[in-house]
């Protein structure tokens, strides 16, 4: 058993719901106990959808367990089919449904419905939400994409592709699809089908008409793309177009797959100029910690270092299935990747790294708030404010503009940062206040918080169980006071460096001199 307060991903059947809800005429019948309908409000509230998800739950209760839950499933399935008349149905079980072993696949076959039925095997006690979405999409493609047709494809004026992987409840999927569709159109490539988002069962049967596939979200679309490659010989893209450079490389990749001549796509993006303008000089070497799903974390780390000039001091993911790409990326930043789905491990790692900015999920937003560090959200899981009304892609050239605004916003602006460093005694502009443009409010001292996190945490984890260092005793009073004169965003790092310096030399006390000796030492 794993003690959990916060989970980065839901169970796999929630992933299946995300695929079903993304599509237009598919209905999902889920063998689940009363109460599992809570998942509906993820779609109706957090994503603010104006329709109920196309999911019918058996909602069995204890009294049903004594009788025939299999019969309940079958009658629910038949009633759902009659009421909603879908073009295809998904059948499966939630975690409790899995335990009672009613075999939805066999029961659906016995019901002999007048539409294709896709059975889903989603092991709830081993796998999680994104895997469930990827597997569901794969099964839909496997069941509904038809057979390879003999003969030539019809001649078309322009090459065409499918866009794979976007779902309901996906982080910025709505606008990413719009942005990438536009870029493809400008490049001279038609979009054949977008799936699962907005696709019908008939659209899945048309996937084979495209020349190649664009995989926007590998966690969800890659498995289906591999199948389409095997069945219909369609190649697929490997570059996720988040950031200016990745978008340019992506466009080169699609031109290659579409058989178009190479050209230098510069695109309408302001990020390079904003990043080169002197106002951004102070962003150089800002220490940033990155965590999220594998795709967004790897992309964000690259953008942070190449396009913002930040220094990536931590990189991790909760996507165990895609950990390899994150490990490779971490190596390129000279880091060890953090692969965990325990938020307390993430909290400990952030406290340890002492970054000036955290790029993460809804959970890192909270961790950063507690540590008094600026934060921007780059990946699911996210809350209602990250399903915005305005156009806000992460991908493509407009996505890069959005990234620029979003990531710089939480940081203290340059002049304010200078003045905080110069004048420590100001009664209004103290550095335990939030950046001025973010309104009133105090930040928690990242200092004391870092120590607190290293100490026993309220919930047990391996990370929290590490012995707390009683290191404050080393500091002489005047050295401690001098440390306070260092701006908050580098203070934690200065403290750590000084302590390491003292430890390496076997010093029993840290004086003001030690502090500056360490500063000179680490500046080399």
């Amino acid at each position, binding site marked *: 058993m794993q003690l959990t307060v*916060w989970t980065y991903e839901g169970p796999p059947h929630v992933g299946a719901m995300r695929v079903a809800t993304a599509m237009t005429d598919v209905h999902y019948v889920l063998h689940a106990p*009363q*109460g599992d309908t809570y998942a*509906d409000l993820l779609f*109706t509230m957090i994503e603010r959808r104006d329709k109920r998800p196309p999911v019918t739950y058996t909602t069995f209760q204890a009294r049903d367990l004594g009788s025939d839950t299999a019969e309940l499933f079958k009658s629910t399935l038949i009633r759902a089919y009659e009421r909603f008349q879908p073009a295809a149905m998904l059948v499966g079980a939630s975690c409790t449904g899995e335990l009672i072993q009613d075999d939805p696949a066999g029961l659906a076959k016995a019901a002999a419905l007048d539409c294709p039925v896709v059975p889903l095997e989603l092991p709830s006690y081993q796998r999680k939400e994104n895997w469930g979405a990827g597997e569901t999409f794969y099964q839909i493609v496997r069941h509904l994409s038809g057979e390879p047709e003999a003969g030539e494809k019809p001649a078309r004026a322009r090459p065409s592709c499918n866009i794979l992987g976007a779902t309901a409840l996906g982080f910025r999927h709505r606008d990413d699809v719009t942005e990438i569709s536009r870029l493809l159109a400008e490049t001279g490539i038609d979009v054949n089908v977008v799936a699962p988002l907005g696709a019908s069962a008939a659209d899945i049967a048309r996937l084979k008409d495209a020349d190649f596939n664009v995989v926007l979200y590998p966690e969800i679309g890659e498995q289906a793309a591999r199948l389409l490659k095997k069945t219909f010989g369609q190649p697929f893209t490997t570059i996720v177009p988040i950031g200016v450079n990745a978008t340019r490389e992506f466009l080169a990749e699609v031109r290659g797959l579409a058989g178009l001549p190479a050209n230098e796509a510069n695109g309408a993006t302001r990020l390079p100029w904003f990043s080169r303008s002197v106002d951004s000089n102070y962003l150089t070497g800002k220490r940033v910690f990155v965590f999220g799903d594998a795709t967004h974390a790897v992309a964000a780390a690259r953008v942070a270092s190449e396009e913002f000039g930040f220094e990536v001091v931590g990189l991790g993911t909760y996507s165990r299935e895609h950990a390899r790409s994150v490990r490779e990326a971490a190596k390129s930043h000279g880091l060890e990747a953090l692969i965990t789905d325990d938020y307390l491990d993430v909290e400990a790692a952030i406290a340890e790294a002492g970054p000036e900015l955290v790029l993460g999920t809804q959970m890192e937003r909270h961790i950063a708030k507690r540590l008094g560090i600026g934060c921007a959200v780059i990946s699911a899981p996210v*809350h209602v404010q990250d399903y915005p009304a305005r156009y806000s892609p992460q991908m493509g050239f407009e996505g890069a503009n959005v990234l620029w605004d979003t990531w710089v916003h939480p940081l203290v602006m340059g002049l304010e940062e200078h003045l905080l460093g110069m004048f420590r005694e100001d009664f209004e502009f103290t550095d335990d206040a939030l950046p001025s443009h973010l309104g009133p409010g105090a930040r928690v001292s990242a200092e004391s918080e870092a120590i607190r996190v290293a100490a026993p945490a*309220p919930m047990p984890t391996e990370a929290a169980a590490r012995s707390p260092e009683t290191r404050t005793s080393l500091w002489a009073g005047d050295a401690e006071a001098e440390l306070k004169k260092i701006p908050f965003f580098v203070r934690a790092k200065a403290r750590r460096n000084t302590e390491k310096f003292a430890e390496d030399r076997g010093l029993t006390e840290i004086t003001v001199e030690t502090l500056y000796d360490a500063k000179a030492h680490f500046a080399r």
Partner: protein
Amino acid sequence: MSGTVSLLPERATAKAGCTEPAVIRERGQHEVFCGLTGIVWMHRKIQDAFFLVVGSRTCAHLMQSAAGVMIFAEPRFGTAVMEERDLAGMADANEELDKVVSRLLERRPDIKLLFLVGSCPSEVIKLDLSRAASRLSAQYSPDVRVLNYTGSGIETTFTEGEDRCLASLVPELPQSRSKAPELLVVGALADVVEDQFARLFGAMGLGKVAFLPPRRSRDLPAVGPNTKMLLAQPFLAETARMLGERGATHIPAPFPLGAEGTTAWLKAAADAFGVDPMTFRSATASAEARARRALEPFRETLAGRRIFFMPDSQLEIPLARMLSRELGMEPVEIGTPFIHKAHLSEELALLPEGVTLSEGQDVDRQLDRVRAASPDLTVCGLGLANPLEAEGLTTKWSIELLFTPIQGYDQASDLAGLFARPFDRRTRLRV
């Protein structure tokens, strides 16, 4: 529950009320929360308790979704997520649970009461949490008391989670040695409401009033043959039954919603304790008048409006009574997960003639009825609210009625405000 049920009130009231209402009983998809959701407010009410759900990732995900932002405030609840190896063998699952609990209690020495909360998966694999609770209780006493109850969806609907939690406390209550009758108010209320009621009872001369649950687990109220219990919430079937087994007697009363409802609720207690009518009036008259005045502006918005309740918390019948009698609303259908005849006898007698009740749910068929009736306001869960709004219906999402202080005189207008606000918003918006 099956067959036709006669709903005769135990005490006939002056007005002919909803004594023989039509009750629709349906089976089908239930669009409701499970009892685990009760933890979201119960963990704030009992300040030194921790709720450990033994369940699956779905349970953790539900708690996270239901608790929204609160998950970040170091909540006093968590989930021991069962993994594949826990399903393989029972002994192993118990060892794993012991490990989780010992680490939890090491880290949180402030916990004095630990609830092991059963879930659908733990019930289906027949993990015996009551045995685990007594084993752990023996191990950690006297510092920590370990209890268990089920919040699973197969056993409980939404607020029944609170019922099961309170019921698990009943055997722990000390034996009352009192020779005189004592009042016990049952059901988690907002702190401000609880304090108001304590003052009102005090003004009637009922000094020694106890509340269940207490704010701290060491302050458990005593119970015995002289205990008279007044239910503050309509969903406490199991708790009341267990208290009855300890000798407590139930004071039949409508629930303290609205000015009239609060007075009737207090009066039932006052009569049971022989409070002189003049004393009762002087204790309550000014607060009741204040509540009635505060309700007046809302009548204008709400009178004549037709309201449809989807089943959710069992608060539907008392709410419909308050909204119809005190604000002039017209209930079309009152859906509720469960109708407890004895606890609702006073309420049913006060419902308007000819109203339709429904118990249980087949959500698709019920939505057909909503569309056919086209009510002015539909009270429903968050999974249905936006889709119905998009169809042009005005909705009020029901979970807010559990998270807002609505009982008592001085919350009557807040309660009315919750139902008036959707109409107010509709008239303001010009887009």
